């Protein structure tokens, strides 16, 4: 008895994992360093369109799956630049004082901070407002 291996699922899995992972890391990194967000937004949209077109043109199911999934993750990433900027404004992601756009956000939004709240292990209990304040002060 022979077992036929179907590579389509593995192709979809790799594209999904790496599309989400690389998108996640790249958006944070690029948003942190770039002053004009429309540039990476347009690049992500163009790449998304390119992969989308490729997914229609290839006759291979695995390649079509990979291109389709990368197309949708890049499309998502193009909107994530703005969402990441909102996180910076609310202090939910650390601002980069050396980035002029972030420096402006740090000056205008009181919650914005260069402190990374998420850079810690869970401890199992919620933090009190006083603890949160001292953590933020301690990081300055």
């Amino acid at each position, binding site marked *: 008895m022979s077992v036929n291996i179907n590579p*389509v699922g593995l192709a*979809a899995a790799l594209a999904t994992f790496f599309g989400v992972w690389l998108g996640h890391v790249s958006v944070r990194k690029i948003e942190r360093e770039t002053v004009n967000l429309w540039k990476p937004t347009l690049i992500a949209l163009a790449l998304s369109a390119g992969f989308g077109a490729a997914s229609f043109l290839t006759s291979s199911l695995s390649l079509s799956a990979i291109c*389709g*999934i990368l197309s949708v993750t890049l499309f*998502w990433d193009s909107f994530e630049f703005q969402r990441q900027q909102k996180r910076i404004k609310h202090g939910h992601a650390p601002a980069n004082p050396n980035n002029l756009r972030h420096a402006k956000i740090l000056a205008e939004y009181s919650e914005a901070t260069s402190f990374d709240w998420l850079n810690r292990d869970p401890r199992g209990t919620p933090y009190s407002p006083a603890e*949160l304040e001292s953590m933020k002060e301690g990081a300055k």
Partner: protein
Amino acid sequence: MNWFGFWLCLATLFIIGLGFVWVIRGERYFGYLWWPYVMGTGVLSILGSLFISNNWASALFGAFGASLIWGSTELKEQAVRGEIGWYPFRAKKILPPFVNVIKKWKAPSL
């Protein structure tokens, strides 16, 4: 014209979107220490997809498995988000089997 990638990308978008929901809810009620089980289920789902002859089912199992693995790496940060007050915190969590062993392992975060 090959429409497989197009329809699959819509399904994957839904699967990834669902990931946000189950990571937030799952962490609130079960805690981040379930991460090895979630990751293991993701790996099994992807391995299982290799043996499914139907292309649609194989692709969906693969994308779903990858989303589970990704989600397992998000649970730790979500736990911190709950503790610092960005999401509702629920102290009473349903802990996983072998929780004391899992506590000794470093939870992944990408």
